[in-house]
């Protein structure tokens, strides 16, 4: 049973972590090498793709902007560039066309590199053909700059405050509403118990028992 309990909490923690890791913004420092526009037919992996641009008809077969990039260590990365619109995750991104123009502007060669910080959410996974969605591109001084993830710090702090408040609200509700109600139930039960005891006391002895039996035919005293 202990293993089941631990397994449950471990699974829950993994799911929460994965959800936050997917949804919260991350920043990569990369060199953009190109951008393209490619038709995709979204299938089983539709969960990891966004919707059509705001105002357009939503289909699972459409053209999607891609941004190709290279990390300072030479590894490659591909981002999709899709509107999130008004849905989840709440980035409210409606400028995928503008972002694509920016990506084209920042494209550079290895000889004359332009380093940019690409903020994105999502994962790159070759097994499902899914791509992180780029949400902003900013030029940085070089490949070694340190960026402090203020947005993540603020969001996670706010989330911790919300969880703490939910606990406080629940405890207050239990103390002021549930416990008094349960006390009321306990008092009612006690009085039922007391009446049963009194009836048993009256029913002592043969005649007492006979009397109690007759008494049980009479209507109950009105309260």
């Amino acid at each position, binding site marked *: 049973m202990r293993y089941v309990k631990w397994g449950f909490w471990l699974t829950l923690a993994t799911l929460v972590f994965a959800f936050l890791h997917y949804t919260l913004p991350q920043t990569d420092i990369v060199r953009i090498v190109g951008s393209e526009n490619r038709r995709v037919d979204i299938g089983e992996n539709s969960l990891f793709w966004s919707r059509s641009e705001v105002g357009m008809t939503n289909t699972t077969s459409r053209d999607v902007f891609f941004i190709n990039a290279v990390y300072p260590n030479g590894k490659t990365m591909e981002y999709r560039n899709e509107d999130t*619109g*008004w*849905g989840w995750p709440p980035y*409210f991104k409606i*400028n995928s066309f503008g972002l694509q123009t920016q990506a084209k502007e920042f494209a550079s060669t290895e000889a004359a590199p332009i380093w940019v910080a690409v903020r994105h959410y999502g994962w790159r996974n070759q097994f499902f053909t899914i791509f992180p969605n780029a949400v902003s591109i900013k030029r940085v001084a070089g490949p070694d700059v340190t960026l402090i993830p203020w947005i993540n710090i603020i969001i996670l702090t706010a989330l911790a405050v919300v969880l703490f408040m939910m606990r406080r609200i629940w405890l*207050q509700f239990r103390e*002021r509403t549930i416990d008094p109600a349960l006390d009321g139930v306990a008092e009612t039960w006690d009085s039922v118990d007391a009446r049963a005891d009194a009836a048993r006391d009256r029913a002592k002895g043969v005649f007492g028992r006979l009397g109690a039996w007759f008494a049980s035919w009479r209507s109950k005293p009105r309260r």
Partner: protein
Amino acid sequence: MIIGWIRLAIVGYVVLTAIYFIMKIYLRSVARERLEKEFDAGGLGGDRSAYVEAGMARYDKGLKKNLLWLIYIIPTVLVVVTVYVMNFQ
């Protein structure tokens, strides 16, 4: 999806209204508990429930209760700021 933001606004404000009422009940409950404990600590004359009700009337007019409207204001401002920063900067 051109009306997507209307849907977001409706769903968002329904959720915020639920949060508003939960927080309202919670903060009132905390205020009442504080008043009851103040009275039970002793040193105050008069009727207990009258003292608590007077305190609650003061609470209902106070700044703290009116700050509850921030539950609507802060998310609205956050969304507007996010839309601006994400797309028009």
